[in-house]
């Protein structure tokens, strides 16, 4: 018979495990081996390649034989005009997305939670998850189409008497459209975590409060929202780690040279400098700066999540 762990702890000190109970760990090592090979090849080898940020990379010589140049690439980066701007653009876009993708999914989850007709709730969920499963190639194509000079949005505006706006060529509109379309695709899917948190709230709390005469609004304020708060705190803390990650694929597909002043983000700049202009080392140096700052932000975000929401990634 198995003793309950609590009972065991009280009565006897835990006995050393006998041989058959201890797993054969060599199997575990063997299981991990193939996956680790992939992680080493596609995550750790590129990390070793970061050394080219301190070299003058010559493709024929490869990672290791290219000559060292010390901090030359970083000095170059410091005097290059526009580097600060790509960091500003990235943070403006991502911070807008981070804030809206906390506020809107929470509101949406609260609304869904109030729907009594299960079929309606489930259908709404299916619909609002939809954009999450569509490629950015298609989503960006649709957005460009909607906001084109004679697109649907301008047609609707013309009904209201507004002159057509060239949205995708406008440095005023580019960021709001990027942020808005990103939020449009993600906010439905992001309700999942909050809805999961709501199912953990005990129904007896609602029953008891209803007996005491609490209105629906009061139940929302005093039961539902407090029940979601740990999850909100957790996701807010974790989202800090994304501050330097605007969605590369989306921006890459939606921007054009006219909106570089407000829309060029770190990754698009790194792509053009490194792979289009073949300035590998300079691009790697800027990429390294982004990775380092991103690393610090993620570590801080995990610390915050651990402290305020008792969260551990593993």
């Amino acid at each position, binding site marked *: 018979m198995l003793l309950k762990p609590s009972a065991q702890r009280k009565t006897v000190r835990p006995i050393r495990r006998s041989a058959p109970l201890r797993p054969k760990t060599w199997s575990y090592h063997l299981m991990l081996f193939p996956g680790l090979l992939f992680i080493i090849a596609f995550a750790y080898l*590129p990390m070793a390649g*970061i050394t080219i940020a301190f070299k003058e990379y010559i493709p024929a010589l490869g990672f290791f034989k290219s000559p060292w140049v010390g901090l030359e690439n970083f000095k170059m980066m410091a005097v290059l005009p526009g580097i600060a701007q790509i960091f500003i653009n990235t943070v403006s876009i991502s911070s807008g997305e981070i804030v809206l993708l906390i506020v809107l999914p929470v509101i949406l989850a609260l609304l869904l939670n109030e729907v009594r007709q299960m079929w309606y709730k489930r259908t709404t969920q299916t619909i609002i998850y939809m954009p999450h499963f569509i490629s950015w190639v298609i989503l960006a194509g649709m957005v460009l189409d909607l906001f084109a000079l004679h697109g649907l949005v301008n047609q609707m505006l013309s009904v209201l008497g507004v002159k057509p706006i060239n949205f995708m060529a406008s440095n005023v509109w580019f960021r709001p459209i990027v942020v808005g379309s990103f939020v449009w695709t993600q906010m439905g899917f992001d309700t999942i975590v909050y809805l999961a948190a709501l199912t953990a709230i005990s129904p007896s709390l609602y029953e008891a409060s209803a007996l005491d005469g609490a209105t629906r609004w009061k139940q929302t304020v005093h039961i539902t929202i407090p029940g979601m708060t740990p999850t909100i705190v957790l996701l807010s803390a974790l989202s800090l780690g994304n501050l330097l990650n605007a969605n590369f694929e989306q921006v890459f597909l939606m921007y054009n040279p*006219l909106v570089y002043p407000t829309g060029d983000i770190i990754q698009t700049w*790194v792509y053009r400098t490194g792979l289009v202009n073949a300035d590998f080392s300079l691009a790697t140096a800027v*990429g390294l700066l982004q990775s380092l700052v991103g690393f610090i932000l993620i570590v801080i975000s995990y610390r915050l999540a651990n402290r305020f929401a008792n969260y551990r990634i*593993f």
Partner: protein
Amino acid sequence: MIRSKSLATRIADILIIGSLLGLSLLTLAPIIHTVAQSLSNGAAAAANEVIFWPIRFTWSSYTSLFNGGGFFRAFGISVERVVLNGVLGFFLTILMAYPLSKNTRDFPARRFYIWIVVFTMLFNGGLIPWYITIAHLGLINTIWALVLPGAVPVFNVILLMNYFRSLPKELDEAARLDGASPWYICWKIYVPLSLPALATVTLFAVVGQWNSFFDGFILINNPHNYPLMTFIEQLVVETQAANLSILTPAQIAELSRTSGASLNAAKYMIGMIPMLAIYPFLQRYFIRGIRLGSTNE
């Protein structure tokens, strides 16, 4: 739950249901617009006459897609990458998640391995070293450039590992007492019990593979070997953006609305239908399966 149907409650119900309906329509509107365009006469679509209903209904956009070879070759390459990556990733993800779900007491090296895995989520080499690595491994221009780099999605490994950890530990101990090997326990006990999580990680992997275009764009040089999304992007967005810097803003906008509006819409439709056909059936799994990390109570 006791609730009187007061007037205020009814008004609240109507407001809630109405705002959710509005949001659903907002989500569907661009997609319906695309459906309508794809089924419209090409000239009508190009002239911006189509809104939410096809004008001069025709299947011709779809038939011309089916007749042109390039589109379905790209479609086939995408199916190939999804299957290869899906199968490989399925086994590798399980094989990594199971040992990592053990206690440090049972598997002392876990601490070391998990740091190797999690560190890749915290830090990466960046685009250029990643590209150069893949080039050095000789994968450029092969299907393996699309399949192998994403074969172990670390996010999915952690998600599955946390699911395994949520199962009762007695399962493992009892099976071990009966002399079962770790391989047997993993495949015959943990895997069958983890269908929601496995469906979730497989769905995420498949959707990610099907929808990604940028790897095809930089790792495949021959347009004949493009996966579907790269193929669509090259035809649609790139032709629009060609020489943007020498055109006036008005010309750029014009260019994006000219020829092939209905054909592009048909490409979008065929590109998104496979994923949109799958996810509703897995909805009940992924709304339960998503669980990255854990909070200690």
